[in-house]
């Protein structure tokens, strides 16, 4: 079974249709997604800014990380659950949406950055915990994280638009990126 057929099956399920057609459910889930953004990206940004060395300079990095990360995880969980519901409401359109695809790639990169940071230089945090200006490698990890989250917010916001939806008159490249092959072009001149 391909991912696309999985999406098509998801779209035919009762709860997907209910979410999609409900007047309020989709809007409420999306509002929760935006609220959790404050907790998740907001706290992640505060920690990243400390890693870059521009704020909370008197707070040891390990203290800030250990106190903020549990809440960041709560925010992340809400983000993922509400995000999955938003996807579940419109699976096939999301599957073909280039911004959705870009967002997933960026999320993987952000996750990779977190993993590399925690398994790498953060293990030696004791040696730079109190640095007002942490080592270069740490500052790069923080800046990269900030950049990725900004890009993720941008691509997430753009999912709502149909600029590159399959079936629109657009370049072949876009059709390849959105995997439009099998979708019939309603604008095509027979």
């Amino acid at each position, binding site marked *: 079974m391909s991912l696309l057929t999985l999406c098509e099956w998801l779209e035919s399920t009762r709860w997907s249709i209910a979410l999609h057609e409900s007047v309020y459910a989709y809007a409420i889930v999306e*509002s929760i997604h935006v609220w959790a*953004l404050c*907790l998740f*990206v907001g706290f992640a940004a505060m920690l990243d*800014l400390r890693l870059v060395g521009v*704020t*909370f300079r008197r707070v040891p990095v390990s203290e800030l990380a250990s106190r*903020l990360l549990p*809440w960041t995880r709560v925010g992340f969980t809400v983000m993922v659950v509400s995000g999955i519901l938003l996807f579940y409401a419109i699976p096939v359109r999301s599957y073909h949406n280039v911004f959705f695809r870009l967002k997933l790639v960026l999320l993987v990169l952000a996750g990779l950055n977190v993993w590399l940071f925690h398994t790498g230089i953060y293990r030696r945090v004791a040696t730079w915990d109190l640095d007002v200006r942490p080592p270069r490698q740490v500052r790069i990890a923080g800046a990269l994280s900030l950049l990725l989250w900004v890009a993720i917010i941008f691509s997430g*916001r753009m999912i709502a638009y149909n600029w590159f939806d399959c079936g629109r008159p657009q370049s072949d490249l876009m059709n390849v990126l959105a995997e439009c092959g099998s979708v019939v072009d309603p604008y095509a001149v027979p």
Partner: protein
Amino acid sequence: MTLLPFFEWCENTAIGEAIRNSVWLFPIIEAFHLVALALIGGAVLLVNMRLLGLVLGGRPVSELARDAHPWFVGGLLVMFASGVPLFLSESIKCYYSVAFWVKMSALFLVLVFTFTVHGRVTLADEGRVGPVQGKLVAVVSLVLWAAVGWGGRWIGFS
């Protein structure tokens, strides 16, 4: 007297028209609005959750508040710089939107509250603010900000 003529004037400004006529401008400006929201959200939550005793218990509130303040103000400036053009592009829709008025009322209240009561409490020396007082201030701030956020998101659905 009604504010409608003013809203009509806003809608007819060159900026409003340019955004309406563009496919990309509105979403791009809105994405900046969202990024600034995350920044403000982080700063506001950090200070208020500290007041509630949920994070960074060992740190003085005033120290955290002072550190978070420039990011809060910076985020607020980006919020205004992006929010005003968004408003200009759909002023008349906003005029008739309950969510818009809820957002603006809550925003006015929370800004006044933040730069008066909230600011005084968070910057006060340790021990001069009772724990209950601090928590009350945090709850009021969070409820008002939540109303701003809810109203804002709902303008788009109205």
